[in-house]
Structures are given as C-alpha cells and as structure tokens.
C-alpha cells in the first residue's frame, strides 16, 4: 500500500486488520501521529486520552486474534464530546461540564466497544451542540481543513474536521437541526442522520430531545454505512428507540440510478442558496439526469417556516433539558446567595451566550400565556411539514436539495449576524422535524470549497437512503481530500 494508514478508508482498514496485514495498535498509532501533526492547526479534539485509545486498540487486536469483533474491529472513531464516555471527560464544550466524567457509557459507545471499534478522543462542538460553526465552544476554535481560516460548520465541527483532516476515518456526531449534515457538507464528507429512534440516544447529552439523533461522518458512503450498522438497533434504555434491527449494509451497492425519482422542493432552492453552491449542485443534478435519474420540482410550502418552528421547539426542549445543570450533583458549582443564588451564579457563569439565549427563548415560549401562540403553533406547523413530506414520498424515492446554502464561511464572519448563522440550517431542519433519515454527500467544489448534496427519505428507509447515496456517489466526480500538513 502506497497510501499511509491515516488516508485509508475505514472499509479498507477493516479488511486489512481482519487479514492481519496491519495491527490495531499500528492503526491507532498512525492516527495518533496524524493528530499530533495536524491538530495544533485544526483543533478538532478536546480530549485525546492516548492511554485509553491504545488500550482499546489492544483489546481490538485481541478480538481480531480470536476471530471476534465487528466488521469495523480495530478502526478508530472520533466521538463528539456530547456523547457520554465512561471515565473520559464529556464536556459538551461547556465550562459547566469542564470536569464532568460520566460513570457510564452511552449505548452507542457500548456498542462500539463490544465490536472492538476504538473510541478515539472527544471532538469539539458548539456548546451543548447549539450553533452552526463550532465557534460557540467554550474551549477552542476548530478550523476547516480545506481552509484553516474557515469554519468546519457545526455543531459537530470537531467530528467533521477530524475526518476531513484524516485524523480518523470515521467519527460520531449528533444532529438536531443539521449538526451532522451541515459540517459534512462544509468539510467535503458524507454525514448521515439516521431515522429518529434507529440509534439510541441514551448517553447523548440532550439538546432538543425530539430532534436529536446520533449519526456518523466518513469520507465514503460505504464507511458511513458500516458505522451506521455498528451503532443502530433497538435499545431498551431509550423509550423513543424504534423496535427495528440494526441498519443493514448487505444491499448497499446494489442500487441503481435508472428510473430513480427525486423531488426537489422549490422552497429549498431560494435566493438564499449562494450562486456557486447552486451551480455546483445543478451540475451534479445534470450528471444524475444523464444516469437516468428523474428530478422533479415540488412545492412543500411549510418548509419556509422550518427555521422559525425549529427555533421554538428546540429551545423549548433545551430550556428544560439543561435545567439539571444546577451545580448540585456534578459539574461547575459557584456560590451565590441562597439556593437560587447558587444556581443563578453557576448557570450565569457556566453557560455561554448562545446557550443562555436559547434557554431564555425556550423558557419564554413555554410560559403561561405564550405557550399556545408559540409552542402549540410550532407543533402544528411541524405536523404539517411531516404531512407534506410524507405525501411527497408517495410519488418519489427521496427529496434532494443542497445541504447548505453556502460553502464554509470565514471564522468570525457571521459573528454579528446570528440570523444568517441560523438560516444555514434551513435545508437540514425538515428532516429533524419529521425524524426522517437524511444524508449529505459531496457534490463537488465551488471556489475550491466543498458543496454538499442532501437526500432525505421516509421513516425507516435508512438502508434505501444509504443505497441511493452510494449510487449517487459513484456517479459524481470523486471529492479529493484537502491538502494538509
């Protein structure tokens, strides 16, 4: 192999590990070296517990030696720092949880460990996953490997940057309104949000519980499908988890583009889409049409209220989810006057601006006298949006659109424009509203920066969406990796 280990796909690494061409320890060391070489510039990782990583790698090798372990045994996976890892700090990039070490593993982490997948450090995010640029992290900036002056997107910015910088072949993120798909698009990666409930949320520190979903980042659809299989399946610890088998990968490569029917919502092709993004997206569509894909414009009117609706429901849930951070049982604890004073000081100092803003919005929309006007109405719009998508699925295989209206913007560029920042999610939010599986794959470059294309399908059709994404990936020009280090 001429390619260094860190540049190889997870599928290739897994094959070579299984064939004993390379050891799990060698794979882990190669990636740790890559992190040492590149992370000072990229800033993807908040915590890199080298000893634990090497211990995991040794355990994986022992499994391989016994002929055990899952398909990705020995492959390193970066973990977003809002997913609980036993014995390793889980901070949500917040001062409030700076020293919090969970006493238990999230279900997805348990699954990774059981299959010999190496948990490879905790990645940066917007504090409590609230943001679209990773700039709301209390601890560090993460930079886009394609252009270190630009954002990797958010909130799973660290999980995207580490895969794009070839520090790991795979990572886990969480997606509440686009937090996997948007950074995947901005970093030239594949990012998948499975159907709500197909991956357990147990151990994922909640932001918007009815919207949150853990999912994978990778450089190929196949890698993402393999990790989806590894983390999915019913979990008795999560009442909202679906009683379905893990996501299957056996038919991944047997999809065909001929006769495929895709719907493209008018409401996602507005002037918000940058001309460069539009051009790259359109040329990708042209390629797909040549392969026999039928692409039809449709109207899904409620999409235009998506961002507004999202910024009522998600903060409402967040305001309640984040109430437990009172400094009494764990995390930051500051003194004030009396109990309420302690809580107010702890939260006032511990939470960053964006988190506090969302807690206040959420508290407001749930308040007596405002609840119906905001929360109830938002749920009605949400239901309508789901209906519109579901009726579209009757005639089409999936809904296609750009993932992000723009390419990666410069760090600090949208600092004073929170509205523009929030609008970045307008293509990704509908999938969270309906719990639909949705994937972003690279569509090409615009001004040397990646553009993402998004496919969204009906509830439970995760296998089908991955299969379509795989077929699309084969038809589209390959996206190179950014030149790093």
């Amino acid at each position, binding site marked *: 192999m001429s390619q260094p280990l860190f540049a190889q796909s997870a599928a290739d690494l897994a094959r070579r590990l299984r064939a004993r061409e390379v050891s799990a320890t060698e794979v882990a060391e190669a990636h740790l070296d890559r992190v040492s070489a590149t992370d000072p510039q990229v800033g993807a990782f908040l915590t890199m517990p080298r000893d634990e990583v090497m211990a995991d790698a040794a355990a994986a090798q022992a499994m391989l030696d016994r002929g055990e372990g899952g398909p990705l045994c020995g492959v390193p996976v970066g973990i977003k720092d*809002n*997913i*609980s890892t036993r014995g390793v700090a*889980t901070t*949500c990039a917040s001062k409030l*949880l700076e020293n*919090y070490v*969970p*006493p*238990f593993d*999230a279900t997805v982490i348990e699954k990774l460990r059981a299959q010999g997948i190496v948990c490879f450090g905790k990645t940066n995010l917007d504090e409590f996953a609230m943001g679209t640029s990773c700039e709301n992290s209390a601890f560090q900036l993460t930079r886009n490997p394609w252009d270190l002056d630009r954002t990797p997107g958010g909130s799973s910015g660290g999980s995207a940057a580490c895969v794009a910088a070839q520090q790991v072949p795979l990572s886990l993120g969480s997606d509440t309104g686009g937090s996997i798909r948007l950074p995947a698009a901005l970093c030239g990666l594949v990012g998948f949000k499975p159907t709500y409930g197909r991956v357990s*949320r*147990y*151990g*994922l*520190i*909640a932001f*918007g*519980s*009815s919207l949150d979903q853990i999912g994978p980042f990778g450089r190929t659809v196949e890698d993402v499908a393999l990790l989806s299989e590894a983390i999915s399946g019913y979990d*008795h*610890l*999560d*009442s*909202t988890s679906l009683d379905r088998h893990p996501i299957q990968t056996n038919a991944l490569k047997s999809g065909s583009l001929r006769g495929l029917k895709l719907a493209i919502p008018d409401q996602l092709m507005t002037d918000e889409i940058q001309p460069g993004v539009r051009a790259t997206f359109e040329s990708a569509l042209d390629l797909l049409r040549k392969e026999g894909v039928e692409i039809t414009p449709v109207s899904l009117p409620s999409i235009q209220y998506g961002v507004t609706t999202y910024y009522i429901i998600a903060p*409402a*849930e967040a*305001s*309640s989810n*984040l*109430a*437990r*951070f*009172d400094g*009494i*049982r*764990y995390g930051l604890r500051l003194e004030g006057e009396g*109990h*309420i004073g302690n*809580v107010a000081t702890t939260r006032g100092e511990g939470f960053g601006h964006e988190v506090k803003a969302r807690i206040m919005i959420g*508290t407001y929309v*749930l*308040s*007596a006298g405002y*609840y119906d006007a905001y*929360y109830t109405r938002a749920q009605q719009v949400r239901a309508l949006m789901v209906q519109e998508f579901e009726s579209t699925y009757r005639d089409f295989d999936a809904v296609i659109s750009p993932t992000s209206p723009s390419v990666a913007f410069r760090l600090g560029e949208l600092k004073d424009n929170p509205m523009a920042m929030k609008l970045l999610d307008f293509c990704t939010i509908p999938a969270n509203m309906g719990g639909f599986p949705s994937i972003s794959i690279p569509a090409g470059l615009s001004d040397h920066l990646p553009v993402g294309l998004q496919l969204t399908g009906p509830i439970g059709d995760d296998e089908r969406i991955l299969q379509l994404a795989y077929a699309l990936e084969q038809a589209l020009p390959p996206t190179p990796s950014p030149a790093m280090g």
Partner: protein
Amino acid sequence: MPEYVLSVGMEVHAELLTQSKMFCRCPVAFGGEPNTRVCPVCLGLPGTLPVPNRRAIELVMKTALALNCTIARHSVFHRKNYFYPDLPKGYQVSQYGETNPIGYGGFLEIPTAEGGFKRIGIRRVHLEEDTGKLMHLPSGGSGIDYNRAGVPLMEIVTDFPPDIQSPDEAKEYLAQLRQILIYLGVCDGRLEEGSMRCEPNISVRPQGAEKLGTKTELKNLNSFRSVQLGVQFEMRRQIATLEQGGTILQETRGWNEANESSFAMRIKEEENDYRYFPCPDLIPMEFDDPFIDRVAQEIPELPLAKTRRYQDELGLNAYDAGLLISDQDWADFFEKAVTLGGNPKLVCNWMNSDFAKLLNESGQWVAGERERTRVTPTHLVELVKLIESNSISGKMGKEVFAEVFATGKNPQAIVDARGLSQVSDSAAIEAWVQEVLDAHPDVVESYRTGKQGVIGFLVGQVMKRSQGQANPALVQESMRKALEP
C-alpha cells in the same frame, strides 16, 4: 354572626407499591442509607433517559377505575419545570391537563353520620415521580438523599368546587381512600411514614355566598386525627379572622402536632409558572379496551361494597361489618369461615371479640409478614358449631378457643381430650338436681318461702357436681321444675 360554610379540597399523594422506581430499575423501599438506591437515571445525570414502569401505570389505572374515573385513551407525561435541590433534573415528570391524566372525573362515597352515603367528586388521578429529600446534616449544612427520587407517586385530587364540607368528612374521605388503596394493593397507606401524604386546602365563606373564600393549604398532616384537627383548626381560625374584620391570606401553613395549631409557612404571592409541556423522552400512552379490562379484572370487591353485602346478605350490623372489612385479610378470613358453613353472626362475634383480643395481645395476624396465627377458618367454624349444638357452653368455648389459639389443635379434639363435652342428657341433669336438693333442704325451704334468688346457688351446685359440663340452660329449667310445688 353569619353562618359559615367550609370547603375542603384534598390532594393526596400515594407512593405506589412497585418493585422498582418509575423510570429506572432502582429498588423502591422505605429507609436505607442515603443515596444507596440511586443510578444515573434517577440522579438525572446528563444523557440518561426515562423508561416508564408499566406496573406503575397499571396501578394508577386500577385506582382510577376503583374511583369511578373515566380512563384517558391517550395520556402523556409532562415535564413540570422548577428549580429545587431535591429535583435532580430541574423538572418533575408528571401529568397535566383536565382529560390527560390516566383517570379523571370520578367519585368516592363516604358514609355519613345519618347512615347514608355522600359522593365526593374526584377530579383527577395521575402518575408522577417523587423527588429527593433535603436533610440537615449533624455536622451542619445540608445534604440531599435521592433514594426517594423517581419513586412512582400517584396524585389524587378532589373536584373543584370541593364536596367536602366538614372536618369529619375530610377525615372520612381520607380513611375511605386509604382503605381502597390498601385493598387495591397500590399503596401501603402509611401516613406516619409518608407513603401516603395528604394536603387539604381549606376555605370558608358566609352561608349563601357564591364565591369560595381564599384558601390555605395545610401540610405535615400525618394521621387521620391530625387531618381532622387540622381542618377544624383552620376553619375556626379563618372564621375568627373574618369575624374580626381580617382577611385570609393565600398561604401554605404547617400543622404543629404538639400544640395542635397551624402556623404560616409561606405566602403564595403568585401562581408558579411550571411551563408544563409533553416530555419528549416518553412516547404517549395509548390505552385500548383489552388493556383497561385486564386492569379492571385485578380490582377486588372494595370495602364499601363489602360492608353493604355483609349487612344486606349476611345480616350483620354496620358496626360489626365495619370492623370486619377494616382489613382485607381479616375480611377474607371471615368470608372463608362463612363459606365453610359458619353462622355469619356467630363467626363475626368470635372474630371481633376473643380472636381480635388474642391476636392483639400476641402480635400475630391472619396473613402477611407478621407472625401467623394458628387459628384457621375451619377451626372457628367447628367451634361455633359445637356451641350452636350445645355440645359445649359459650364459657367452655372461650377456653377451647384459647387452646386452639395457643396450639392450633382442632376444637373437637380439645373438647374430647379434656372431656369438656357439655351434658345435655336430661336424665343425668335431673339426677344431679335431685342430689343437690337432697343435700340442701334448708335452701329449698327458703326458696319455697319466697327467696327465689337462691336458685342461682342451687344451679351453681349442680354445675359444680357436673364439673361444669352440664348445659346451664337445661339445669336452670330442670331446677325450676323440681322446685315447683
């Protein structure tokens, strides 16, 4: 001075008799070292999720059905948001709304002083989780014990405006409710230990006034007596305040058991805004007929129906019936004896007198965890029949029963062994009578001269000769006959 009308609303919290907590598998038990019955879920650690306890839902439904409620076909859990140190998540999972609680719109009947029944409307029966407990540490400062956090708690609230209009009715409501809960096996009803807690809200208004007066809420009531006294005290205090031209403050008052008075705890300045909203971590509950029917089948005959049946069908008086049904196992014992052919009235008399007394003295009981009595319903029936057939006298019966109680032997066997059989043979009795008359001619003489009281002495002599085995009624009769001129 105008007449005043009392209105008492009752809010009762009952800890459910489940094995485990509401949303995790921690055991439910009274006491225990602080924070030994906790886990990441009931401590509200970040990322944990609730899994509802199905049994708790069934127990609440069972109660709701027994209280004649409508069962909600669709019922959701809400989050009640507020900050308090004993509340691990910053919200309590509860149920909000008029027709959302598992049961609503029912009633409970209480006996009235006039011998009739009065219906007390029930507004709602819902399910929630208990909080932890603040403790003052011996070393100073305070700590929190979360053993109780997450224990399933049922809340039963009476109608508004309230039907309860006297301290006696308040006590009777609580007594009836407690008995029903114990019969249903949903709560052990221990007021002193707090497994059943009662918070009445009390107001008075002048006779004829439409609007209810300002109410105060009373806490720390841990016996029937304190409920009755507390309501009475509040009623008198409020009337006295109004008579003196004062106003009633809407406040929470504590009950001081020692000096039998209430004291102001805190004034309710405004209604708390708990920002209730459906808990997104829990899926809505849907109850269909088969499920409800299955729960309904678990409901035993309830105490009130039992007393009515004992009076109407078995001819007992209200007092005796009330004693029998005061405990379900006691009533079961009675019913078994009756089924075995025991005369209901006689069985009842034995149970409520000698048997109850001996059980009380020995600390034994007919069922459950206490030391089990050796007396069986069969024993009691046998004993009653021996007395009914004049085989032994009632007085002998007491001795025999004491021995049954001590040894568990059959009454007949005891009678045979001790040679206690009562002599009803008239020839034998007449012979004894003649012997006594011959032995005491002077006494016979004084009887004949008018001192008829001496017959007692003569009968006593016969009993003595028969070693207590002669049938006293027959002796009396035979003696009278013999003395006739």
